[in-house]
C-alpha cells in the first residue's frame, strides 16, 4: 500500500530485519479470495484472483478459499460452485438478505468477523470500486497492511507475501511486505492476472457462516441501482483487440484515426494518460496503471511512448504492436512488433488495408 511509496530503507533498517511474527498471528493460515458478486454476476477479476491465489496456496502448502457474501439464492450457490471450478478448495458462504446489494458497513462487518474467526494469512480482493471500498475498511478495522493494485504476487522463502506494484506515478516498481501483521492483504486490478482454466466438475468444501444482520441496524440504504446504458468501459478491459493512441497523434482530431481502425477491427479504443489530461478522450478510456489494464489478443499502440505506467497496463496482451516515430521510444522495449513511422499516416493506411482484406474475403465467401 504505502500511500507514499517510501524509498527502500537501507540494509539494516527496518526492512532488513527478520520477520518476527507475534505469537497470536502464527495461527493465521490459508489464502482467501473475496468473490465479488454484484447484480447476480461474479466479476471476472475474482476468477483471475483465484488463479493467482492457487499458486500462492500451492507454494505455501495451504488451502485456497473463496469468500462469497450475498443474499440467499441461486447466484450465491452458483458463485460457490464456480469458485471450485476456478481452483478454490473451500468456500466460506455467508447468505443474508441484508447482503443483497454491496454496502460498506455490513460487508466490512461480516468480512472482518470471518477473518477474526478463521484467520487467513493472505487476503486478495479485486481492485474494483467495490473491492477497494471494502479492502480499505477491512484493513483499517483489522489494523493490518494492504497493498493496492499489485501487479505481481509471490511468496518468498520465509512464507511472506511479496506484493509488487508500480510506484511514483508508474516510473518504478516496488515490492511491499506486511511482515509483522496478519492477514497480508492485497488488491489486484482486473486483467492484471491471467484468467485460469476452468475445471469442470471440481468440487470443494462449503463452510456456511451465519451473519445475523438486521436491516434496521444498517444506516446506509441503497435506493436504486442504475445500470450503465452502454457497458463500453467494461468492454475495453475485456476486449480481444484494442487500438490506442498517445501524444504522438499530435492533435485531438487525429485521434479519429484510432477510432477508424478500431471500427474496422471490431476493436475497442483507448489512450495513454496524457490524452485524458488533455481532454482528447474520456477518463474511462485511459489504459495503464491508473486507467484500465487490458489483456487483449492484439494491442496496437499508436504514438504512445510507453512509460512504465502504461506498460504495466498492457503487458498481458498476446501481441503488442507499436507505431512510433522515435525508434528509441520505450514502447519498442516491450512491444512484440513495431513500425518506426508516423502513426497519423500509418493508421489510415492500415485501416484501408484491413478494410480491403475483409471486404475481399466477404465477397469470396
Amino acid at each position, binding site marked *: *500500500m*504505502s*500511500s*507514499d*511509496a*517510501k*524509498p*527502500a530503507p537501507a540494509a539494516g533498517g527496518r*526492512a532488513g530485519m527478520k520477520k518476527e511474527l507475534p505469537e497470536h498471528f502464527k495461527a493465521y493460515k490459508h489464502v482467501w479470495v473475496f468473490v465479488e458478486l454484484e447484480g447476480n454476476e461474479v*466479476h471476472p477479476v475474482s476468477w483471475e484472483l483465484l488463479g493467482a491465489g492457487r499458486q500462492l496456496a500451492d507454494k505455501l502448502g495451504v488451502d485456497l478459499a473463496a469468500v462469497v457474501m450475498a443474499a440467499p439464492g441461486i447466484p450465491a450457490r452458483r458463485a460457490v460452485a464456480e469458485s471450485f471450478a476456478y481452483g478454490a478448495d473451500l468456500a466460506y458462504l455467508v447468505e443474508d438478505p441484508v447482503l443483497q446489494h*454491496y*454496502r460498506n458497513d455490513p460487508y*466490512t462487518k461480516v468480512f472482518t468477523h470471518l477473518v477474526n474467526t478463521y484467520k487467513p494469512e493472505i487476503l486478495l480482493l479485486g481492485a474494483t*470500486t467495490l473491492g477497494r471500498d471494502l*479492502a480499505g*475498511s477491512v484493513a*483499517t478495522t483489522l*489494523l*493490518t*497492511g*494492504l497493498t*493496492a*493494485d499489485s501487479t505481481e504476487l509471490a511468496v518468498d522463502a520465509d512464507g511472506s507475501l511479496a506484493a509488487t506494484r508500480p510506484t*511514483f506515478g508508474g*516510473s*518504478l*516498481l*516496488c*515490492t*511491499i*511486505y506486511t*511482515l509483522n501483521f496478519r492477514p497480508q492483504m492485497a488488491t489486484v486490478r482486473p486483467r492484471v492476472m491471467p484468467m485460469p482454466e476452468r475445471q469442470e466438475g471440481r468440487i470443494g468444501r462449503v463452510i456456511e457462516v451465519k451473519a445475523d444482520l438486521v436491516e434496521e441496524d444498517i444506516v*446506509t*440504504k*441503497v*435506493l436504486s*441501482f*442504475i445500470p450503465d446504458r452502454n*457497458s463500453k468501459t*467494461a468492454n475495453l478491459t475485456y476486449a*480481444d483487440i484494442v487500438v490506442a493512441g498517445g501524444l504522438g497523434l499530435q492533435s485531438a482530431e487525429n485521434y479519429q484515426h484510432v477510432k477508424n481502425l478500431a471500427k474496422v477491427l*471490431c476493436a475497442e479504443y483507448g489512450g495513454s494518460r496524457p490524452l485524458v489530461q488533455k481532454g482528447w478522450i474520456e477518463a474511462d478510456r485511459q489504459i495503464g496503471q491508473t486507467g484500465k489494464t487490458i489483456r487483449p489478443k492484439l494491442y496496437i499502440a499508436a504514438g504512445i511512448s510507453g512509460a512504465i505506467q502504461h506498460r504495466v497496463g498492457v503487458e498481458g496482451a498476446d*501481441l503488442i504492436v507499436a507505431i512510433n516515430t522515435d525508434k528509441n521510444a520505450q*514502447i*519498442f*522495449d*516491450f512491444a512484440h*512488433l*513495431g*513500425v*518506426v*513511422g508516423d502513426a497519423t*499516416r*500509418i493508421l489510415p*493506411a492500415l485501416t484501408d*488495408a*484491413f478494410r480491403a*482484406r*475483409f471486404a475481399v474475403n*466477404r465477397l469470396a465467401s
Partner: protein
Amino acid sequence: MHIVVCMKQVPDSGQIRVHPVTNTIMRQGVPTIINPYDLFALEQALQLRDKLGGTITMLTMGPQMAEDSLRKAMAFGADRAVLLTDRFFAGSDTLATSFALATAIRKVGDTWGKPDIVFTGKQTIDGDTAQVGPGIAKRLDLHQLTYVAKIAEIDLAGRSITVERRAEGGVQVLRTQLPCLITMLEGTNSIRRGSMADTLRAARAEVVKWSAADAGIEDLTKCGLRGSPTVVKRVFAPTAREEKAHLIDTTGLGTDQIAQALMTEVLTRVPAIEGDLQRAAASY
C-alpha cells in the same frame, strides 16, 4: 455546516524522472501540485458551502512546503487550512496516514465544530491506493461513500444525504446519515477560479500548523514508519525484456506498403483474428 477537505501535495508525476544509472527517483526540480483528484472534492465542498452556508477546513499531512498547496486551496475559497507536519509522520503508509488524519480531524472538530462531511479525492496520483479515505471513515465511524459522482440531496435538519456512487457496471443511489465521508470521483466538476479578494485573503492567511502533539496524537508508535504495517523492501525498474520489438523494415516502402507488411505480420502472429474478423464481416 462544517466541511473538512483532506488534501495532499504530490509531486507532478508527469515530471518525475528516474535516474538512468541508479534507478532512484530524482526529486530535484520536480514541481509539486495539489493532488488533482482532491480538487474535485474541494469544488464539491465549495458548492455545498455556497448553497448551505458554513465553513470549509482544509487538512493536509505533509512537509512544511505543503503550505503552498493549502494556501492555493484557500485562494479557491476554503476558509481555513491546517497543516499536519511532524518528522514522526515520515514514512507513513496508508494505515498510519489514516490514523494521523483521523486524529487531526477529531481535533479540528473540537476546535471549530464537528464536521458534517469529510471529503477526500478518489485517490492520490503518487500513491494511487484509494485507501486513506476509507481508513479515515472507519476510524471516525463516519458513513463511507466512495466514488461519489453526484450529491443528489442533503437534508441538514433530517441529517440525511443522498448520493450517486459509481459502482461496477452502474450507479448506486445511496442514502445515509451525516456525518459521512465522501471520496469524490474525478471529472464530476471543475475547480473554480478564486476571486481576487479570496486570493489576497489566502496570501495573507495563516496556515495553522500542528505537530503530532498539537493534533492530540499521544501514541507515536502508530505514526510514520513505526505505525506502518507495510514495508517497502525493494524499489526497482522493471527488467527490460530480452527481446526488443521486431521492427518492420520500412526502407524504400511507401505508407501503403508499410501498412500491408504490418497487417500480414499481425495476421501471421495472431491467426485467430482472421477468423473473428471474417465472421464479423460476414455478419454485416
